[in-house]
């Protein structure tokens, strides 16, 4: 397993960094020519992933979060790395969308949205510690959808 290469946009883990990560996705996506609808989805997906790292991974402790977005053929690949404790997506309960309001839990939506709005979402341990989330959105460019 090789660590993804290339420049990453890096910030200290905090909820205040969310807007900066969204700006990075916007700017990079526009430079790459990503379809605007796809870009709106990716902005949310990265927000959800970084929020999870800050709240559940680091749990308020300091640490870096790194994001990189690049084009691979007609696809867009986004990688999000951290040095937080190991994350096992299998431990996150599904959001139970079919439950009546009174029975519906508040959590679990972030991971669900990540999976719904991408074609692939692979969580894996990063070499040297931490986690890496690799997201793929296929046919992400105008005219390829």
């Amino acid at each position, binding site marked *: 397993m090789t660590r993804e290469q290339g420049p990453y946009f890096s910030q200290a883990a905090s*909820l205040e960094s969310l807007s900066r990560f969204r700006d990075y996705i916007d700017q990079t996506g526009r430079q790459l020519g990503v379809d605007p609808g796809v870009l709106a989805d990716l902005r949310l997906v990265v927000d959800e992933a970084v929020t999870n790292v800050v709240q559940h991974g680091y749990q308020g402790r300091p640490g870096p979060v790194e994001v990189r977005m690049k084009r691979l053929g007609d696809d867009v690949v986004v990688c999000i790395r951290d040095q937080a404790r190991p994350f096992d997506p299998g431990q996150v309960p599904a959001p139970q969308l079919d439950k009546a309001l009174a029975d519906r839990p508040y959590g679990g939506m972030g991971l669900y*949205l990540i999976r719904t709005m991408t074609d692939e979402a692979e969580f894996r341990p990063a070499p040297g510690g931490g986690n890496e989330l690799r997201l793929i959105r296929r046919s992400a460019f105008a005219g390829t959808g």
Partner: protein
Amino acid sequence: MFEIRQDEAGRVVVSGRLDAAHAPEAQVFLDDLAGHCVMDMGALEYISSAGLGVLLRTHKRLLADGAGLKLVNVNHHINDIFTYSGFDKLFEIEAAPASG
């Protein structure tokens, strides 16, 4: 940037980006409301799951008193997120008029 306020007609007006950084501020504001509430989302650019949680909590609390939260002027992208998350079955939602 995120802003939440009540207009002269009593509608809750939200604008900007409702993410996990601003969800607590929105929750504090909404916790003070009672009765039937209408939230105008015309100027809301963005909502994440943290914002969805705020809406769900508020709607649940208001419904327990026989009222509820109605979401109006909802743009296309946010409407899609409501559909993915099953909110279209839980809330009364009015889409924004189609633009341009």
